């Protein structure tokens, strides 16, 4: 699925950062290797980035870099960091996960009114899907999504993943597609909704860390 790209040059100018900084953040793994997209243009080899993702990431780094060392910062960005705990109210307050979904599907991960980061994210992803699918997604399908992500996503860290809802008649089949690439369905089946998890994590973190 296409996404908007921004060139390295435009990025440096727009975010007012230098080559040295960008290469340093790459060494510290603050910017994932997959985001560096090399293309040949008429002026030579140039590097591009997924626009929304990189702008959000650089804004995050620039915002926090004075308070946290780069190594600590890399910690906050790790997508499935389980030792960050988030209070339930923060999730509903930022509009990330409705209370009903929290109560029904957080399950045993919920302790002392708090959820580990990854569990909170799974609920957020389920909520985003239910928003895309509207009324037609059954309550229990949120639980199905959460269980799918719980089971499979930790094994796929580092790979670009997409959550896809297929419909063929009643109900939905939830799939997790890892590694990018297009999906083709037969004539009876429709791709009802899809959610790119790397974008979802960025949106989740941005909203969560917004003051």
């Amino acid at each position, binding site marked *: 699925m296409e996404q908007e790209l921004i060139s390295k040059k435009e990025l440096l100018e727009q975010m007012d950062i*230098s080559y*040295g900084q960008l290469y340093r953040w790459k060494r510290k793994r603050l910017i994932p290797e997959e985001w560096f997209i090399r293309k040949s243009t008429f002026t030579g*080899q140039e590097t591009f980035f997924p626009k929304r993702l990189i702008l959000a990431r650089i804004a995050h780094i620039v915002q926090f870099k004075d308070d946290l060392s780069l190594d600590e910062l890399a910690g906050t960005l790790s997508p499935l960091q389980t030792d960050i705990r988030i209070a339930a109210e923060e999730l509903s307050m930022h509009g990330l996960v409705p209370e009903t979904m929290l109560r029904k599907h957080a399950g045993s991960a919920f302790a002392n009114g708090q959820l580990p980061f990854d569990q909170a994210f799974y609920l957020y992803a389920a909520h985003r899907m239910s928003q895309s699918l509207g009324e037609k997604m059954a309550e229990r399908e949120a639980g199905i999504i959460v269980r799918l992500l719980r089971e499979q996503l930790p094994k796929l860290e580092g790979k670009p993943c997409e959550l896809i809802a297929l419909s063929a008649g009643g109900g939905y089949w939830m799939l997790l597609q890892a590694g990018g690439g297009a999906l083709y369905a037969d004539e009876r089946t429709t791709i009802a909704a899809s959610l790119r998890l790397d974008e979802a994590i960025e949106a989740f973190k941005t909203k969560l860390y917004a003051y």
Partner: protein
Amino acid sequence: MKDGEHSDLGNLSINGVGQAYGGRYRHVSIDGLARLSGNVQCETFRLNGVSRMNGGVDTDRMTINGVMSGKAGIIAKSVSIDGKVNVRGSLVSEEIDLHGLLKLEGDCEAERFVVRGGFGIDGLLNAGTIEVDMHGRCRAREIGGSDIRITRSSRRASRLLRRLFSAFEPQLHAGVIEGDEVHLEATQASVVRGRRVYIGPGCEVGRVEYELELLVDEAAQVKESVKQ
């Protein structure tokens, strides 16, 4: 390796000709000829001689005096090489100090990359400070960092360097070079990008994109230059 994990690990010491398994050690010390079969994790790795590594090395401090060849990557805090290192993988360290020749099939990352000699890096050389005093051929697919300084040595070469790089005129070949302060001599590159750029004698560059300042020596060739 985390602090405190070291104290109960044994040391690996090879004197003369020997082989050892990979594994976790505290100090690895080789004086002679060694073959290590698996990945090695240790606090310090010291080689004085020749070593063939079938796996990678994960260590704090690596000191090589001699020749090392490895099938997998090296991760360290500091690497000091006096001799020749050839790795079928990447080299990631905070400090890299090379007197001799380094060949990597992968990438090279460091905060400081200081070279007297030459290197061939198949991937990206990504280091904050890059200081290369070329005594032989240097090559990297791409070079990126903050302060990049590539000079063709006029100093008297050490015996080691004369042995490693006898006939060839020192030159750096790279595709793209990007940095903040970039000083190049005897460099062939397709594209050079930087804030302040100096293209010195012996350089052949296709395109320079600079933000603040560009200086091109009369003994250098730049096909086109663009101020950003």
